[in-house]
């Protein structure tokens, strides 16, 4: 095992990002899709932290702070939307939500 470089961190971030992507694209359950998006955002945060470390600048830390806050808002709003749909439709299956098409 060699030294851990920036590349490792960024690579990991990318891998995590795309694991999240798999969830976003591949799961029918909207809740899991939401979580996947959170995972994606987190992966990007990891990249930011790594780059901040590389550049030894902390503005990225502030940015990560913002992202975390935004992620929280997104989660709240997304879940609110989901709940409002669930109230009428009793489902969180994305494949059922295709009334709007063509």
């Amino acid at each position, binding site marked *: 095992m060699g030294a851990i470089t920036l590349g490792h961190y960024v690579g990991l971030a990318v891998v995590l990002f795309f694991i999240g992507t798999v969830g976003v694209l591949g799961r029918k359950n909207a809740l899991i899709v939401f979580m996947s998006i959170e995972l994606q955002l987190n992966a990007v945060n990891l990249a930011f932290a790594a780059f901040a470390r590389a550049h030894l600048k902390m503005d990225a*830390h502030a940015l990560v702070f913002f992202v975390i806050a935004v992620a929280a808002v997104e989660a709240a709003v997304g*879940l609110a939307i989901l*709940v409002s749909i669930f109230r009428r439709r009793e489902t969180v299956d994305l494949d059922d939500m295709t009334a709007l098409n063509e």
Partner: protein
Amino acid sequence: MEPTLFWILAGLSVVSGVIAVTRRNPLSSALALAIALVAVAGLFAMLDAHLLFILQILVYAGAIVVLIVFVIMMLNLGPEDLEPMRIQPLKFGLAALVSAAACGGTLLWIRDMPSLSAPVTPGFGTASEVSKVLFGPMLLGFEIVGLILLVGILGAVVLAKKED
């Protein structure tokens, strides 16, 4: 030491990430997500991002995941609800394929990174130092985040509140 820790945390985050997107039951997913987030928090610490480490645990693993779990509980999906939403091999496989391809492509783009050997400046990543940025040049951003949070609250109220 450091590489080992990195690989452990990396492995943990990847594995729990994979688990998070593959579970049928969203509760299991949420749990796996929490573990992944904690693992990333560990990586933050390794990157000398001490404040972020704290925030990650508190806000992400704490607040957000709890919110998700809360909603999962509220929706209270039984197995008969979840069954139709289990992984469909074709769809999931295609998604994985596309993602893997994109992932590979992206990795190709980001080769040849510098090492992280440069020593950190004193106080790097600590709350006080980050605050200097946050309440210095980034103050406006901070305010905007406040606005976004306000919007989030409004949104939650508008969307999820029952008809009066």
